[in-house]
C-alpha cells in the first residue's frame, strides 16, 4: 500500500527527468552556438554552428548527456529531503561532507562532470579533440613519439572539479532541501519565472568554479599531468606553453570555453534539480474519505498519520491546508459523520494528528529550554555529545565571573550577584541573558573535578582550530529545532481554518468537542515559542541568500511559525468571539486567551 502511494513520488520524479531530457537539445544547441562564437566572422560562425548541430558528434553527445541527466535525476530523488539537517558546529558540517553517502554522491558527480566536459570538448573540437597527438616537428624528428594534449586533460579535470564542487556546495548550502511554495502556481509558470535566475546563477557559479579551478591547476596541475604521462607513456610537449603557468592560463579563449562548458554543465544539472523540486512539491489532492475499503490507506487522515515517507506527510498537510481554505465540499466531508455509526472519524483523525504534531513541537522546545537553562548540569557531561560543544566564549565568561567573586557561595547569593551586576562592567549585557544567568551557578556547585575539566576545556577552547571546529554556530541550533516546522505551520493553518469554518459549516458540532484541547495545545505552544524567542540568537535574522536555488526557507521557519501561530489564534478568537468564554480551560490559559481577544498579543 505504501508503495502505491510512493508511486506518486516516483512518477513525479520521472516526469521531471523526462522534461529535463526534453530540454537538453535546446541547451546543447545553445552551447554549440555560443562555443563557436566569433565577433569578426559572424556568417562563418552561424554556418559552422548549424553544420555542427547536424554532426554525429552532437547526436552522440546528446545520448550521453541524457544518461548523465538520468543519473543526476536519480541522485536528486535519492538524496532530497523536506527536513534539512542543520549542522550546529563546524565539525558536524565536516562530518556531513565526509559521510560515506555523500562521498558516493561526490564521486559520481565528479565522473558525470568528466562526461559532460568530454561531450563539451568533443562539440567544441579543435585543440580539445584528442588526448595524445604526435609531437610537433622539432621534438618528434626521431620517430613516432606521442605527446600529451594538455588542453584535453585540463578540460576533463575541470569537469571533475566542477562536479565535485557542485556536490560539495550542495551539502554546504543544503541544495537537497526541497521547500514548498507559499503560493500555488502552475508548474509551467513557476519554471518560467525561475529560469532566468537559474541561468544567471549557473553562469556566476561557473565563473567562481573556473577561478577556483585555475588556482587549483596552477598549484597542483603537474601531479595529474605527470601521472597521465607515465601511465599512458606519452611525453610532454615542451614546445607548447604549459598550462600551470601564468601565461598558459591567461589564454582568453581557453577560459571562455571553460566557463561556457561549466555553465552548460551547471545549467543542465540545475534545471534538472529545479524541475524535480517543482514537480515533487506540486499540491496533491488526497481524497478525504473513500467508500471502498481498499482505498482507505490513500485517504487524507491515513496518510497524515503515517511517518514514512515524509514527503507524503508534508503533501498531505499541504492538502489539508488548501482544503481548509478553499474547498467547501471537502470541508463538509471532514465534518461529516460515518455511515453507519455516526462517528466523526475523519475530523478526529485529522485533529488528533495535527495536535500531536503541535504538542511534539512544544515538548521539543521545552526540553531544549531546559537543556539550555541547566546546561547539562543534571547529567554527566560526556553522556550527551551535543551539549559538550558549548560555546567556549560563554564558558570563559562564567569562569571570569567565578574568579572575580570569591566569597563563599550559596545559591541565593549567587542569584543576588547575578541580579546586581554593575551595569558598567563589560559583561553586563551578556549576564543579562538567561543563558548565562542559569549557567553561572553550575560552575560553583560543581565538584572540583568538574571544575578542572572545565579548565582543561577552556584551555583547549583557546586553541584556535578546536575552537573553530567546536564552536556552536550562532542560531544554528534554533534553526535545527524548527527545521521541520513547515509541517507545524500547515497543521496550525489547517486546523484553525477548519475551526473557523466550523462556525458556519459544522452541522453536527464535531469540532466543538475538540475546541478546548485545540486551544490549550496552541496556547502551550505559544508559551513555548515565546520563551524560545527570548533565548540568545533565537530572534536574530539570518543572512538572506541571493539565489533561488540555495533555498534558505528553513532558516526563517521559526519566524513563520510564530506568525502562523498568532494568526491561527486570532482566527479562532475573531470567529468565535465572546463564545470562547464558555469553553473549559485553565485560568492561566483563559488569561492568555483574553489577551488575544483584546488584541494585545
Amino acid at each position: 500500500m505504501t508503495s502505491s502511494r510512493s508511486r506518486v513520488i516516483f512518477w513525479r520524479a520521472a516526469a521531471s527527468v523526462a522534461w529535463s531530457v526534453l530540454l537538453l537539445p535546446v541547451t546543447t544547441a545553445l552551447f554549440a552556438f555560443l562555443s563557436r562564437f566569433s565577433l569578426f566572422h559572424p556568417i562563418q560562425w552561424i554556418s559552422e554552428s548549424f553544420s555542427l548541430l547536424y554532426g554525429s558528434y552532437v547526436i552522440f553527445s546528446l545520448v550521453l548527456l541524457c544518461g548523465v541527466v538520468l543519473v543526476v535525476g536519480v541522485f536528486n530523488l535519492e538524496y532530497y529531503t523536506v527536513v534539512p539537517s542543520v549542522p550546529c558546529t563546524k565539525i558536524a558540517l565536516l562530518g556531513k561532507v565526509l559521510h560515506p553517502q555523500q562521498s558516493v554522491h561526490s564521486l559520481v558527480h565528479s565522473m558525470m562532470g568528466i562526461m559532460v566536459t568530454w561531450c563539451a570538448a568533443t562539440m567544441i573540437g579543435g585543440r580539445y579533440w584528442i588526448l595524445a597527438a604526435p609531437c610537433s616537428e622539432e621534438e618528434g624528428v626521431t620517430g613516432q613519439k606521442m605527446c600529451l594534449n594538455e588542453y584535453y586533460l585540463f578540460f576533463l579535470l575541470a569537469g571533475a572539479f566542477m562536479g565535485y564542487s557542485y556536490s560539495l556546495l550542495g551539502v554546504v548550502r543544503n541544495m537537497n532541501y526541497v521547500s514548498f511554495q507559499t503560493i500555488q502556481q502552475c508548474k509551467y509558470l513557476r519554471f518560467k519565472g525561475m529560469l532566468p535566475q537559474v541561468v544567471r546563477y549557473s553562469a556566476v557559479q561557473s565563473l567562481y568554479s573556473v577561478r577556483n579551478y585555475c588556482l587549483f591547476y596552477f598549484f597542483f596541475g603537474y601531479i595529474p599531468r605527470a601521472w597521465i604521462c607515465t601511465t599512458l607513456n606519452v611525453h610532454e610537449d615542451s614546445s607548447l606553453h604549459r598550462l600551470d603557468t601564468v601565461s598558459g592560463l591567461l589564454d582568453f579563449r581557453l577560459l571562455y570555453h571553460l566557463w561556457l562548458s561549466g555553465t552548460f554543465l551547471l545549467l543542465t544539472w540545475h534545471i534538472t534539480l529545479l524541475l524535480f523540486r517543482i514537480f515533487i512539491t506540486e499540491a496533491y489532492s488526497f481524497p478525504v474519505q473513500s467508500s471502498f475499503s481498499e482505498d482507505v490507506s490513500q485517504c487524507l487522515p491515513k496518510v497524515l498519520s503515517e511517518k514514512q515517507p515524509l514527503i507524503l506527510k508534508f503533501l498531505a498537510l499541504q492538502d489539508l491546508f488548501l482544503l481548509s481554505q478553499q474547498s467547501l465540499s471537502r470541508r463538509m466531508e471532514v465534518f461529516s459523520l460515518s455511515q453507519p455509526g455516526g462517528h466523526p472519524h475523519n475530523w478526529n483523525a485529522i485533529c488528533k494528528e495535527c495536535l500531536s504534531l503541535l504538542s511534539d513541537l512544544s515538548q521539543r522546545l521545552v526540553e531544549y529550554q531546559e537543556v539550555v537553562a541547566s546546561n547539562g548540569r543534571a547529567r554527566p557531561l560526556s553522556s550527551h555529545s551535543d551539549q559538550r560543544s558549548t560555546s567556549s566564549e560563554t564558558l570563559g565568561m562564567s569562569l571570569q565571573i567565578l574568579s572575580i567573586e570569591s566569597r563563599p557561595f550559596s545559591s541565593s547569593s549567587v542569584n543576588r550577584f547575578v541580579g546586581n551586576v554593575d551595569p558598567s562592567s563589560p559583561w553586563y549585557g551578556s549576564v543579562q541573558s538567561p543563558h548565562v544567568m542559569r549557567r553561572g551557578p553550575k560552575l560553583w556547585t560543581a565538584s572540583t573535578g568538574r571544575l578542572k575539566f572545565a579548565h582543561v576545556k577552556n584551555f583547549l577552547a583557546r586553541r584556535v582550530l578546536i575552537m573553530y571546529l567546536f564552536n556552536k554556530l550562532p542560531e544554528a541550533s534554533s534553526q535545527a529545532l524548527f527545521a521541520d516546522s513547515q509541517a507545524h505551520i500547515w497543521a496550525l493553518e489547517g486546523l484553525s481554518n477548519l475551526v473557523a469554518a466550523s462556525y458556519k459549516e459544522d452541522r453536527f458540532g464535531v469540532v466543538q468537542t475538540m475546541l478546548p484541547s485545540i486551544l490549550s495545545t496552541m496556547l502551550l505552544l505559544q508559551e513555548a515559542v515565546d520563551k524560545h524567542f527570548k533565548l540568545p540568537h533565537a530572534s536574530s535574522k539570518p543572512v538572506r541568500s541571493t539565489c533561488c536555488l540555495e533555498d534558505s526557507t528553513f532558516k526563517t521557519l521559526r519566524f513563520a511559525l510564530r506568525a502562523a501561530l498568532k494568526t491561527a489564534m486570532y482566527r479562532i478568537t475573531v470567529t468565535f468571539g465572546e463564545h470562547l468564554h464558555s469553553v473549559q480551560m485553565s485560568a492561566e490559559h483563559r488569561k492568555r486567551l483574553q489577551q488575544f481577544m483584546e488584541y494585545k498579543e
Partner: protein
Amino acid sequence: MSGVSWELGMNSLSLFPPPGPDGNITLFESNNELVCGTSLGSRQKQGWEPPSLLFPRESLKPHSRPESSSKAAFLDHRDTLWMRSARAWRDSGLSGLLDEIANCTEEEVPRWLTVGCSWTLALLRWVSSFHGSLFPHLTLSSEDMVAEFSQVLDWSDCAVRAFAWHPHTDKFAVSLLDDSIRIYNSKSATAPTLKHRLQRNVAALQWKPLCASALAVACHNCLLVWHVDPTSLSTRPSSGCAQVLSHPGHCPVTSIAWSPNGSLLLSASPVDTAMMVWDVAGESCVPLQRVGGGGVTFLSWSPDGSRVLASTPSALFRVWETRTWTCERWPCLKGRCQTGCWSPDGTRLLFSVQGEMVIYALTFTDAPGEPHGWSGSSKAAAIVADLSETSFSTSQGQVRVGGQVQTMAWDPRGERLAVLLKGDPEAPDRPAMIAVFKTRISPIFELLPCGFVKGESGAEPRLLQFHPHFPNGALLTVCWSNGRISHVPFFFVSAGGSVLNPGGSPPWPLPQSRAVENGERLLYTEMSS
C-alpha cells in the same frame, strides 16, 4: 470595455439631494438622511468616538525636496572618485554612475572616459525615451509617480498621505507629510510615532489582518512592516521593530494589499511589471510577472480572498484569482483603471477608469472555493452610475458637482458606497466632493442616492475609508485638505440581517416607509441593464 451599453441615459447625481448650506458640515446619517450642522453637539455619544484629529499643513515639515537639489547641498564633494561612484551606483544604478563620471573634472579621470560616459548616458536616455513613449509614466520622477497613482487626491501637497483602520480593533494609523506615522488607539492614551530612515514618500498603509501589531507601509524604495507592540507604552518604537522588504527594481511602491487571511502581502510598483507576493516572516517574495501594462499601480484584494484587482498604468487591468494565480485581462477603452472596490462577498467589483465619469461593475458568478477552475465572470463591464457634472442651486448660488472618480470605498456590510469625485482645481464652484450611494447586493444589485458629505468650509476631501466593523451601520473616515480627519457615522439597520454584530441595536428608529419612498429614486438595478 467592449459590449458596454448605457441605456439608462441619466445622470446619477441629479437625483441626489443638494449639498448642505455653506458653513455646515455633514454630521451623520440617520433616518435615511444626511444631517448637517455646525457642531457635533447635536448628537449623543455612542461608546468610543474616534478622535477627530487636525494636522495643520504648516506644522509638518516636509522632506519632499527634489532629491538632486538636496544631494548637492549635503554631499562632501571632496570625496574620492571611487567613493562618489560607489554611492552613485548604489543610489541610482548605472545611469547615476555614468552621470557621476561624466561630470568629473579632468584631473580626476581621463578625458576619453568622461566623453565616453556622457555618450553612453545619452544613448541610454535615448533608448529609455523609446520605452518611455510606450509607457509615459516611466519618465516621471518617483515622487511624481506616487502622486499620480496614489488613491489620495493631490498626494504631494496633502498633510495626511495615508490612513488605515485596524481590521479588528478600534485603532488607526495615519501617515503624515513629514514621513512619520502615528497610531491612535481607543484603549490607550499614548499615540506612538513611527519613524524610519527608509520611510519616505509613504503611499499606502495597511494593517495585517488576524494580527494585532503588524502594519505594512509602502515607501519610496522598499516596503516596511512595523511590529508595534500594542501593550508597549513607548511613544517612539525603535526602527528595529520594522522589517525591511525590498526587491531590486521594485520601487516606488504605490500599493500594498494583505490577503484577508493574513498570510501573504502583495506589493506593486508602477515601474515593475511583476507584482510581488511576499512571505513576510521569511522575507522572501515570489514575483508574478506579466508583461503588458508597464507596471502595476493599484491592488485590491477581495474580502473573501479569492480574487485580486491589479490595475496598470496603461488602459488595462487584471483580475487575479488566488488559487493558482492566473489572471484575466480586462482592456479598457479610455484610460487606466484608477480605483476599484469589492463587495463584501467578493462577487462584484466596482471600478472607475481615468477619463470617464462613470462607475463600472463586474460580476463574478462562480462560488469561490469550489474546484473546476474559475470562469464565471461576466463578459463585459456594466455601467452602474453616471457621475457627469450636475448643477445644484443652493442658498449660496450654483454649485456644480461631478467628475472623475479618485477613489471609492464600500462599507464592510455592502450598504454604503462612498465615491470621491475629483473637482476642477481651476473652477472654485466645482470642488472635489464625496458622493455616498446606498447599495444593496442581494438578491439583486441596486444603487440608490444617499447624499453628499461636506466638510468645513474651504476644505476639500482627499482620502476616505470605512471603519471595518462599526456596530451601528457604517462609519466613514475622511481626510480633508486642511489636515482634518473627521468621522461621519451612517446609522442604519442592515438589510441583510445584522451579520457583523448580533447584539447591536440601532440608535435611531428606522421608519420602514422610507425604503419605499426611495424606490422611485432608484439609480441602478440589475434588471434594467
